[in-house]
C-alpha cells in the first residue's frame, strides 16, 4: 500500500509539476528546456505507470487515500485513487501514447515562440494530469473533476491559436456542448448521493446498493450518465464539436480528440457496467445511438477533403462502434477497441500532422497526391494505420472490431449487418484518404513540391512505434476460437465479470468474420481503384452535397436551437426586463410621487418623508389587521421616554 501511495503520487504529480514549471516559467525557459521538461515528466509518469501496472497484476486492486475532498455531516467524498485492472490499462495508454505525442510535439510545434511553446506544453501536461485523475479517481466526483479538467484543456488547446476567431468559436462550442453532457453526469451524481449517500465505486457498484435502487432509479441514473458520455465521446446528438475541434494543433487532435479524452465516456460506462447491465432500456439506447453515430459519421467522412476532418469523423464513427459494444454488453470488447483505436488513430493523426508539416500547412487532400516516395516513413506507417482501422487481419483493429461485431450479432443480427456496412464505409473512406494523399501524381504547387521533406526523427519515431503497436496490439485479445487466450478479457474479469457467452457456434463465428473481412477488403480495393486516377471535386449529386455538408446538422442546430434561444434571451433583456419589470418598478415610484403630491402632504420631493409615512401606514395596517394594540403600546413607551 505504502509504495503505491508514493507511486500513484508520482504518476499524478509529475504532469502537474510539468504544467506548473512551464506555465509559471513560460517567459524564462528556453525551448529546449521546455521540451525536455514537458516530455520528461510524462515519460517519468509512464515509467511509474508500468510499475503500477505490474503491481496490480501481482497484488490486485489497490486503493490509495490522500485526504478528504469533502467531508461533511451529510456526504463524504474522499480524494482517493483506485488502481485496478481497468485503470492501470488506461494509465499505460494515456502516459504511453501521451509520451510519444509530447515527443512528436517538440518538433511539430518548434516554429512557436518560446512563451507560446511553454504554454502549449503546460496545457498538454495539465491535460495528462486531468486525464489521470479521471481514470484513477475512486468515485464519481473524482471522475467528474478529471472530466471537467480534460474539457478545460481541450478548450484551451483547440483555441491555442487564440487570435483566430474561428478557432475560439470552435473551442467554445466544444466546451459548451460538453457542458450539456456534463449536466447529465452531474444529475446522475446527485441522484446517487440522494439515494445511496455515496459516490464511491466500492459502495455504489455493489449488489447491496442495487437492491436499494428501484429499476426506475437505475434507468434514470444510467441514462443521465450516458448523456455525459455522449458529450465527451461525441455521440449523436452532441457530436458536432469534435470535427470543429480539429482547429487545435494536430498532436492535440491525436492525443485528446482521438486517443484519450474522447474515450472517457467508454471508460465511465465500463466502470459502471454493473448499473448499466441492470437497465435493458439504457443498453438499447446506447447500442442504437452508438451504431447510428457510427454510420452517420462514416457517411460524412466519405465526402470530406480535409485530411483532419476525415479522421475526425472517423473518430466519431469508431467511438460509435465502442458504444455499440457497450450497449450489447461487450465491455471488454469496447475497452479493447479503445486501446487499439488509441494506437492506430493517434498514428493516423500524427501521420496527417507529418503530411501537413511537409506540405506547409496544407490540409486539403485534393492538393496532395504522390507523397509515397517523398515521405516514405510517414507513408508506410500511415498505410499500417489504414489497414488496422479497416479491420484487415492480423492487424489490431480487426480483433477488437470483430469482438464487438460478434457480440452485436448475438444481440441482434441487425446490429451486425449495420456494423458491417459501417466497416465497409470505414475501409472505403480510409483508403480514399490514403490513395488521394499518397498515391497518384503530386497536385500541389511546384514550390511545395520542392520543399516536401520527411519529418525529423522526433516525429517519425512516434510514428514507427505507434505503427508497431497498431499492427501487433491485437495480440492482447486473440479469441480462444483462434487458439488464443484473450488476455484482455481475462484481465478485466474483476471489473466486468466473466465474458458473456454469445451462444454462437464456431463455424458461424468464422463465417461472420469472413464476411465482414472480405467486404472490408472489397471496399478498400474499390477505393484505391477509384481514387488512384481522380480526386473528388465539389459534389454534384444531391446526396453528395448532403454528405459534403455534413447532413446540414450544424445549420439545423443553429437555426433550430441557438438562434431561437438567442432571440429568447434578447426578448427577456429588451422587453421583459426593461419594459415589464423595470417599467412596473418605475411606474410604482412615479405613482408614489404623484399621489404624495395629490394629497399635498409634503411637496419638497424628499423621498425619506414619503417612506416614513409609508412605514407608519404599514404599521397602522398591521394594527388593524391583527387587531393588536401591542404595537401602539410600544410607540407609547417610545414617546413617554
Amino acid at each position: 500500500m505504502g509504495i503505491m501511495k508514493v507511486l500513484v503520487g508520482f504518476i499524478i504529480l509529475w504532469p502537474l509539476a510539468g504544467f506548473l514549471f512551464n506555465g509559471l516559467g513560460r517567459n524564462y525557459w528556453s525551448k529546449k528546456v521546455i521540451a525536455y521538461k514537458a516530455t520528461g515528466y510524462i515519460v517519468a509518469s509512464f515509467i511509474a505507470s508500468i510499475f503500477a501496472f505490474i503491481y496490480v497484476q501481482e497484488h490486485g486492486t489497490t486503493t490509495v487515500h490522500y485526504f478528504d475532498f469533502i467531508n461533511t455531516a451529510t456526504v463524504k467524498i474522499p480524494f482517493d485513487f483506485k488502481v485496478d485492472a481497468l485503470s492501470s490499462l488506461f494509465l499505460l495508454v494515456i502516459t504511453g501514447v501521451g509520451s510519444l505525442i509530447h515527443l512528436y510535439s517538440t518538433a511539430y510545434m518548434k516554429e512557436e515562440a518560446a512563451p507560446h511553446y511553454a504554454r502549449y506544453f503546460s496545457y498538454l501536461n495539465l491535460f495528462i494530469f486531468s486525464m489521470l485523475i479521471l481514470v484513477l479517481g475512486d468515485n464519481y466526483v473524482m471522475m467528474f473533476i478529471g472530466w471537467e479538467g480534460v474539457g478545460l484543456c481541450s478548450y484551451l488547446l483547440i483555441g491555442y491559436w487564440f487570435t483566430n476567431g474561428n478557432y475560439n468559436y470552435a473551442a467554445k462550442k466544444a466546451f459548451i456542448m460538453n457542458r450539456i453532457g456534463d449536466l447529465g453526469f452531474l444529475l446522475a451524481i446527485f441522484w446517487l448521493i440522494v439515494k445511496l449517500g455515496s459516490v464511491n465505486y466500492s459502495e455504489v457498484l455493489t449488489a447491496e446498493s442495487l437492491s436499494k435502487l428501484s429499476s426506475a432509479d437505475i434507468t434514470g441514473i444510467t441514462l443521465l450518465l450516458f448523456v455525459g458520455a455522449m458529450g465527451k465521446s461525441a455521440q449523436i446528438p452532441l457530436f458536432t464539436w469534435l470535427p470543429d475541434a480539429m482547429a487545435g494543433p494536430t498532436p492535440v487532435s491525436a492525443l485528446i480528440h482521438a486517443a484519450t479524452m474522447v474515450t472517457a465516456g467508454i471508460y465511465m460506462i465500463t466502470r459502471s457496467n454493473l448499473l448499466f447491465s441492470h437497465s435493458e432500456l439504457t443498453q438499447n439506447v446506447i447500442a442504437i445511438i452508438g451504431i447510428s453515430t457510427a454510420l452517420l459519421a462514416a457517411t460524412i467522412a466519405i465526402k470530406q477533403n480535409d485530411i483532419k476532418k476525415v479522421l475526425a469523423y472517423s473518430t466519431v464513427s469508431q467511438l460509435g462502434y465502442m458504444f455499440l459494444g457497450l450497449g450489447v454488453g461487450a465491455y471488454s470488447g469496447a475497452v479493447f477497441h479503445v486501446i487499439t483505436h488509441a494506437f492506430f488513430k493517434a498514428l493516423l493523426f500524427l501521420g496527417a500532422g507529418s503530411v501537413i508539416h511537409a506540405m506547409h500547412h496544407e490540409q486539403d487532400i485534393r492538393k496532395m497526391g504522390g507523397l509515397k516516395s517523398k515521405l516514405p516513413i510517414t507513408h508506410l506507417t500511415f498505410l499500417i494505420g489504414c489497414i488496422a482501422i479497416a479491420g484487415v487481419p492480423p492487424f489490431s483493429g480487426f480483433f477488437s472490431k470483430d469482438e464487438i461485431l460478434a457480440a452485436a450479432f448475438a444481440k441482434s443480427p441487425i446490429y451486425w449487418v449495420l456494423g458491417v456496412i459501417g466497416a465497409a464505409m470505414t475501409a472505403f473512406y480510409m483508403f480514399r484518404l490514403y490513395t488521394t494523399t499518397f498515391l497518384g501524381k503530386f497536385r500541389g504547387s511546384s514550390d511545395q513540391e520542392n520543399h516536401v521533406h520527411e519529418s525529423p526523427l522526433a516525429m517519425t519515431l512516434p510514428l514507427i512505434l505507434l505503427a508497431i503497436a497498431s499492427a501487433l496490439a491485437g495480440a492482447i485479445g486473440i479469441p480462444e476460437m483462434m487458439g488464443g487466450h484473450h488476455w484482455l478479457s481475462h484481465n478485466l474479469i474483476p471489473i466486468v465479470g466473466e465474458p458473456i457467452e454469445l451462444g454462437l457456434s464456431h463455424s458461424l463465428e468464422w463465417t461472420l468474420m469472413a464476411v465482414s473481412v472480405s467486404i472490408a477488403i472489397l471496399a478498400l480495393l474499390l477505393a484505391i481503384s477509384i481514387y488512384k486516377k481522380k480526386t473528388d471535386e465539389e459534389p454534384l449529386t444531391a446526396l453528395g452535397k448532403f454528405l459534403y455538408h455534413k447532413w446540414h446538422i450544424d445549420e439545423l442546430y443553429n437555426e433550430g436551437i441557438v438562434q431561437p434561444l438567442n432571440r429568447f434571451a434578447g426578448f427577456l433583456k429588451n422587453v421583459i426586463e426593461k419594459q415589464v419589470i423595470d417599467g412596473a418598478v418605475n411606474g410604482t415610484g412615479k405613482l408614489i410621487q404623484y399621489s404624495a403630491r395629490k394629497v399635498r402632504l409634503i411637496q419638497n420631493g424628499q423621498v425619506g418623508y414619503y417612506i416614513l409615512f409609508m412605514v407608519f401606514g404599514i404599521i397602522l395596517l398591521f394594527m388593524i389587521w391583527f387587531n393588536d394594540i401591542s404595537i401602539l403600546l410600544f410607540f407609547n413607551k417610545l414617546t413617554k421616554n
Partner: protein
Amino acid sequence: MMLVSFLFLPVLAAVILLLIKNNKTAQWTAIIFSGLTLLVALQMLYTPMADFNIAWLPNLNTRFILHADGLSKILILLTAISFPAILWATANNEYKNRNVFLSLLLFTEAGLMGVFLAADGLLFYFFWELALIPIYFLCSIWGGEKRIAITFKFFIYTFLGSLFMLAGILFLNAHSSDHSFLINSFINANLTGGQQITAFALFFIAFAIKMPIFPLHTWQPDAYEQSPTAVTMVMSAVMVKMGLYGILRWLLPLFPVAFMAHTHVVVILSVIGILYASFIAIRQDDIKRLIAYSSIAHIGLMNAALFTHTQIATQGALIQLFSHGINVLGLWIVADIIEQQTGTRSMKEMGGLAKKQPTLAILLVGFALANIALPLTNSFVGEFLMFTGLFQFSPWMAAFAGVSVILAAIYTLNMVQKVAYGAISEKINTMQAPNKGAQAVLIILLIIVLATGVYPQPLFSLTADTLQQLFVK
C-alpha cells in the same frame, strides 16, 4: 482581541480619514486599518472570542450584543478580506475628496461587520442602515452619469425593504415575552401561524430586495454599473450576503413554520430568477452588467439552496457565501483595470488582452473558470452541494436550475473570448501592465480560489456549528 474591534477599527479609521487631506496618506491609512481588521479576523479563526454584551438604550429594552458563530465568522472573514483587497486594488483610481470617499467606505465596513455580529433585533437594524446609508452617498456623489436616477431607485427599493423589516422587528418585540429585542426572545416569541407568516413576509421582503431575488432585482445591475467600482465591489462581494445572512440568522430560526410553508414558492421563484438572469447575461455587452447578471444568477442559486431546507444544500450555501465573494471580487478587479485604462466597458471594443497583457488575461480566465464552478475551484464545492440538496428537494428543480450550468459557460466564455482572445483591439492596445497592488491582490485571490477549491475542509469546519444549530435539534 474582542469582537467589538471589528466595529471599532473601521469606525476609528473612518473618523481619522476625515482629518487627512493627503490622498496617498488617506489611501494607506484606509488600507492599514482594514488590514488590521483582517488580522483580527484571522486571529478569530484560531481563538474563540467571547460575546460582547453591554447595555444600550435601556429604555427600549435593547442591548448591544455581538455574537459570532460559524455563519458570522465566514462572513466576517469575507468582509475583512474584501476591504483591504478592494482598497489596495483600486488605490490608483482617481476620486474627488478621496478621504471622504474612503471614510464612507469604512463606515460601510463597520456596518457590515455589525450586521453579521448583532444578536439583538434593533442593533441589527441599526447596522443594516449603517451599512446602507454611506453607500447611497457613495453612489450619488461619486457614481456615473445616470447616478441620480439610479441611486433614487436603489434607495427606494432598499429603504423600503429596510422599513418592512423594521416593522417586523417592532412586531416581534411586541410579541416577545420580555418585550426585548434579543434574538433569543424573538425565537421564543409566541406567534400564531398567521402572525408568523406576516412577520416572515416583512423580513423576507427586506432580504429578498437585498440579494436580490427575481423580480425585485432591477435596481442591482443599474447600481453596479453606475457606482464607482470600489463601491460595486463592496455591494457585490459582501453586501448581497446580508440578505442570505438574514435568512439563516433571522428568518429560518424565528419563523420555522412560515419558512417551511413557503419553501416551494421561493425555490421556484429563485430557479426562475437563475435562468432569467443567466439568459440576460448572455446578451450583455457591458462587462459590468454581465457580471451583475451573473451574480444575480449565483445568488439566486444560494437562495434556492437555503429554501430547500436540506442540510447538504445549506452547507453548500454557507461556504459559497465566502467563495462567491472572492470570485466576483476577482472579476470586478479585472473589469475595473480594463475600464480604468481603456475607458470602456463595452466588450465589443475589447479583444486581444491575452496578447497584449498575458498575465491579466490568465487571471481573468482563472476567475472566469471559478465563475462557472469548474472543479478544483472554490465554487464547485459549494455549487455541487447546493445542487445535490436541490435535487433532494426536487429533481426537476435541480434539472431546471442545472441548465444555468450550461448558460454560465456560454456567457462566461463569451466574455473571455471577447476580452482576451482575438486580435488586439484599438482600446486594448493602449493598455499598460496593471499596477503592482492590483496584480498582487488578484494573485492572492486566485490562490484562495484554488486552495479552498482543492481543500475546502477548513471552510466546512468553520461553519459546522451553524449547521448543527439549524439542523440537529
